[in-house]
């Protein structure tokens, strides 16, 4: 009797200890295989002679040297730098301005916030469709203004190889700036009012209060906004497909569209894998330090 109960209890204890890990393990296994295993697989492919299908003949750094000599990749990298920096700077400037204005005890604040933020709920394909036709010279803004009587009005950025990348900025800023506003607003609401009071008693102007005290305290919000926006900029794919399809020509090619077309339509899987690896590296350079610091603060 006594022996069976202790044995029973030992089994219970084992189960009790292992159960939480057992529950977690399917998710963890899935992520290990489908995230990290797949990353290694693609990384490996970037050193092989894969074309239409994966193939395992190693070619060293050849795909990377080819990648950086292809004109389309150069364009994609230039574009993501132009797009990314404008996108981040404009979203932050606009978001900060709107957050400060909304923080002045505005009537109907909740209603206005709802309007500023709703684009975040939309698919980039929807956003792209709306802006594609709105910016189209034949039927959109240009045609409308001309029909109002300003016959010489011209706005053809979306058809112009040099300017098309800026139409992507316009649509992307429209979609995300409300979200950045919400992040800054949350930051503003967390600021300690005592310091402000003290500074005001010392006779500081509103402008000085914001510049010297409020905005410096928004550093964490700036960090978060930068990380989120930079990572969205590098991953941008849907919006380009819907808005310009990468065109005119290859004028709005971004790394994500480059990877897709080289891998799946041009049958250069090795080069596609190399470009995906570069994308991962740049995102990791931004995300890993951020996640690391967040998790360490928590402890």
């Amino acid at each position, binding site marked *: 009797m006594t022996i069976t109960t202790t044995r029973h209890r030992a089994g219970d204890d084992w189960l*009790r200890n292992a*159960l*939480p*890990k057992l*529950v977690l393990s399917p*998710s*963890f296994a899935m*992520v290990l295989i*489908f*995230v*990290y*295993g*797949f*990353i290694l697989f693609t990384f490996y492919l970037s050193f092989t002679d894969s074309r239409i299908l*994966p193939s395992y003949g190693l070619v060293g750094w050849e795909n990377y040297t080819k990648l950086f000599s292809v004109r389309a990749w150069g364009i994609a990298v230039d574009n993501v730098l132009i797009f990314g920096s404008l996108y981040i700077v404009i979203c932050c400037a606009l978001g900060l301005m*709107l957050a400060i*204005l909304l*923080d*002045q005890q505005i009537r109907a604040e909740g209603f*206005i916030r*709802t*309007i500023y*933020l*709703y684009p*975040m*709920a939309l*698919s980039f*394909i929807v*956003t792209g*469709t*709306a*802006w594609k*036709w*709105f910016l189209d010279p034949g*039927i959109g803004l240009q045609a*409308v203004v001309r029909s109002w009587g300003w016959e010489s009005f011209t706005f053809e950025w979306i058809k112009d190889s040099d300017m098309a990348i800026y139409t992507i900025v316009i649509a992307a800023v*429209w979609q995300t700036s*409300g979200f950045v506003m919400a*992040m800054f607003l949350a930051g503003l*609401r967390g600021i300690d*009012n005592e310091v402000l009071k003290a500074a*005001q008693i010392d006779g500081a102007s*509103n402008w000085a209060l*914001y510049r010297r005290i409020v905005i410096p305290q928004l550093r964490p919000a700036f960090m978060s*906004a930068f*990380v989120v926006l930079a990572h969205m900029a590098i991953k941008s794919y*849907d919006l380009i*497909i*819907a808005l310009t399809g990468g065109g005119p020509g290859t004028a709005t090619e971004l790394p*994500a569209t480059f*990877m*897709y077309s080289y*891998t799946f339509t041009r049958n250069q899987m090795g080069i596609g894998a190399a470009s*995906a690896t570069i994308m*991962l590296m740049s995102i990791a350079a931004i995300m890993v330090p951020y*996640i690391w610091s*967040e*998790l360490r603060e*928590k*402890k």
Partner: protein
Amino acid sequence: MSTNASSQIIRTGSGARFVIYTILALFCLYYLLPLYVMVVNSLKPLSEIQAGGMMALPGEWTLDPWKSAWSTAQIGVAATGLKPYFLNSILMVVPAVAISTVLGALNGYVLTKWRFRGDTIVFGLLLFGCFIPFQMVLIPMARMLGLMGLAGTVPGLIFVHLVYGIGFSTLYFRNYYEQFPTELVRAAMIDGAGFFTIFYRIMLPSSGPIAVVCIIWQFTNIWNDFLFGASFSDFDSQPMTVALNNLVQSSTGVKEYNVHFAGAIMAALPTLLVYIVAGRYFVRGLMAGSVKG
């Protein structure tokens, strides 16, 4: 959001307030403009758009673009309208959201109340998985779905969204359960309650708000996805976003802008409705996904 606006300290004169309200109102117009364009132009005949009347209200109101977009428009090779693809999206979204939310809740519970050595590393690995560029997994995933016999099917898409959705759902529940008093869990353990009893009886009843946040986030993300849909679906399993893109980009025949706008609204409507009904939770999800905590 708390109400201690810094403006309780910083005062603005009435002239300044007029300027502030004007700017805020102008930006309302800016954000609403594309929505206005979509709605207005989906209700007018094509000829009015072609004549440069995109900003005008319809001269002749019509629902034909909506009917066409829903049931007769040419999508790829078939003139089926968007209806079958709308159904595909629903069939894909519901199971993917349900399963990833349940798994996220269990994972969050384990990672906060049954901590073990290395749990932070496990969580960090799950978390980083949310942010990788999915271009990095497209090639092996295409092969894996083929091996599993799920290539080009809705279950295949459910699987993909589940795998890459777990990170975020775990993040939400973990951060939420971390605030939950561990003493309650300890007390229940001493009373002899087991792992699942504690989860059902103590954790779940107070998980309502975060479950809503998680469901809304996953729903919005998966409904709006385009990359996985474009990569892993066939003509008969395409989600709404891919079908909408095919409709808009089709190069044959006259461009029916009014039909495109109607289709775009259809694709936007589910997530927009969720946002209008439960916007507060949507914003909380966005913030938790970026500012964390």
